[in-house]
């Protein structure tokens, strides 16, 4: 009952919007196809540097906000987390969360109708859950089973959705409309704990606890620092590289 009807309506609308954009060009592309199919090659400096960013003014302000949030709240929490928990313990938490995250990747691979990678990921989850003490040791990576990370933004992109406007999301960072919608779907529908918490209110505290630790663990393992390059054009570079990196993630 905590979220109420409104809350679910919003999420449903976002999913619907994502699926609708996906339906406009329903041509998936597969491994082996020529890379980067949607994006025309940049021919001028302007074409190279510019990314569809209609909310640029707001995005730049959120970028600055994220810098201050990092400095005053986020990184101090990460420091405290690293101070309180020794590295081996943090590694176990990291591996445990990674194993849970693999379930989301699995779900997305199923939605992309890629059985080989889906099975590989399922096997990975099985190995880590069974031999890695419910996932606290990432045995699969240790024996060379590569992790294939997928999210719903990629699934939307796989079925042809374009990225939409570039967005800088408070706390989360660089994204775009497609990936941001995907993030919501991943968190509340494809993540088992998130889904159960949605259905049964009793689990919500566990879901939130997991999410909080997840957020801190992710930040602790992300070396990126806002304005870390000191370049006056960092926003532009991050925007360009984020967009191109997501192109690559789509065709993996």
């Amino acid at each position, binding site marked *: 009952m905590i979220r109420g009807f409104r809350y679910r309506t919003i999420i449903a609308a976002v999913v619907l919007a994502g699926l609708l954009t996906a339906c406009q060009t329903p041509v998936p592309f597969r*491994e082996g196809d020529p*890379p*980067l199919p949607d994006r025309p*090659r*940049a*021919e*001028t*400096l*302007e*074409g*190279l*540097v*510019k990314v569809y960013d209609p909310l*640029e*003014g*707001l995005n*730049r*302000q959120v970028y*600055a906000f994220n*810098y201050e949030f990092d400095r005053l709240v986020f990184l101090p929490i990460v420091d405290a987390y690293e101070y309180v928990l020794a*590295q*081996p313990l943090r*590694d176990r938490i990291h591996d445990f969360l990674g194993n849970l995250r693999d379930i989301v990747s699995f779900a997305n691979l199923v939605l992309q109708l890629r059985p080989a990678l889906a099975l590989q990921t399922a096997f990975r989850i099985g*190995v880590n859950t069974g*031999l*890695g003490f419910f996932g606290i*040791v990432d*045995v699969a990576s*240790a*024996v060379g089973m*590569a*992790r294939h990370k997928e999210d719903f933004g990629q699934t939307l992109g796989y079925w042809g959705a374009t990225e939409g406007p570039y967005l800088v999301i408070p706390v989360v960072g660089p994204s775009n409309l497609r990936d941001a919608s995907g993030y919501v779907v991943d968190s509340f529908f494809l993540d088992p704990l998130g889904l159960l918490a949605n259905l049964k209110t009793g689990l919500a505290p566990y879901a939130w606890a997991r999410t909080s630790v997840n957020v801190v663990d992710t930040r602790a393992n992300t070396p990126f620092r*806002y*304005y*870390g*390059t*000191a*370049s*006056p*054009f960092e*926003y*532009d570079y991050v925007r360009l590289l984020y967009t*191109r*990196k997501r*192109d*690559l993630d789509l*065709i*993996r």
Partner: protein
Amino acid sequence: MTRWLRTALVMLKATFVLALVSGCHPSPSPPDPSLAQTPSGPFEYPWDDPIVATVVGTPPALRADLPEIVPFSNRSLRMQPDRVLPEIFFHHRGMRYTLSAQPEKAPLVLIIPGTGAGPTARLVEVLSRIFYAGGYHVLAVPSPTFTNFAVAASMTGVPGRVESDAMDLHRSLAQAVDEVGERIEIENDDISLVGYSLGGYHAAFVGWLDETAVERPIGFRRVLMINPPVNLYSSSRLLDSFIDKIPGGIDGLPLFFEEVFRTLSSLYTSSAGPSDLTGDYLYEAYLTLRPSREVLAALIGIVFRLSATDLTFTADVMGNVGTIVPGDKELLIRTSLTPHLIEGLRYGFTDYLREVLYPYYRRSEPSLTVEQLVAEADMKRIGGYLATNSKYRLITNADEIINTPEELAFLAETFGSRATIFPRGGHCGNFQHPQVVAAMLNALADEGP
């Protein structure tokens, strides 16, 4: 089948134990005293081409064994508390610097980075690890050409004139040393200065000012210059010319970017490729792709062009010159800088000198000429001082790409037995080689000529 399963299980168990054991010992290896030895024997370094050396660096297998983790703190120093800044520079109120402090009393090494580099640049980190392993506290400031320095520490905000830059550096170093004096114990006030690339050139002048022109000298025991340019203008021209290795020059950048990206993407998306764009990915990429000399030279050109672009924009704004940003334009956090990036990419270092640095100084010195600026930018001006001063040491390479042969001869002649010149390594491409590491430590520790 069952045998395969059993083998797999044993392997898994072994890996599991290994993972736990290795997880329990995250501490760095102790400093290796054998590092500080005079290099001897042949120089085993694989790259004969200085362009390859400059981009690829020392292969991981040949690198000196340096501790990975250095106790390291990012710090900030308010140098100009009263300066009014455009809103876009709100995060540059303090000059950034880093400190790697030894737990006990130790001598201190100060590091000045190369063009466009800050105190957390990769090569600064490498040097910090080297000198930390050698038993020194290490403090690094930004290069005057780094946006943060120009905004937060420079008196003018328009870097490029060596006396003014060296003065700014001296003041920053002195204040930073004062500030960390409360946290670290410096053995016998023993402070040395180390600079690489443009920072090596700056170190020469900072050491000179320290003895001749400042009220409160720091008193460097040693000044080590690594791969320095001799004449800023001639090195700028050499570096600017690298952008022409892209077919079509800077206008060919988009196509070049697409090509490189496509090539890297095929590697990234292949199942054999590394799972992320980090670590030694570029080295592996080099081994797999073996890009041509032209492509590598173009990459060098792009790296330097991006820092020339930053420099042009920052100095133009800070000095209110109006070359690419109209003087009355308000630069708020929400202001798009993309148009300025697109224009700024057209500015190399020599364009910067003519169109930002020169107009800025001509305001207060109407008779100044570009030729005067070029002549000023030559280290030979203080050649007599450098030749006779025993505190200076030089390390560079015979195949250095930013020096002309004549400039290299000047360095060899000026520093004589105080110079170590390696046969190969290009521009800063052999820093992690054990013999180069030993030469660096030896340069600070030797008894003197």
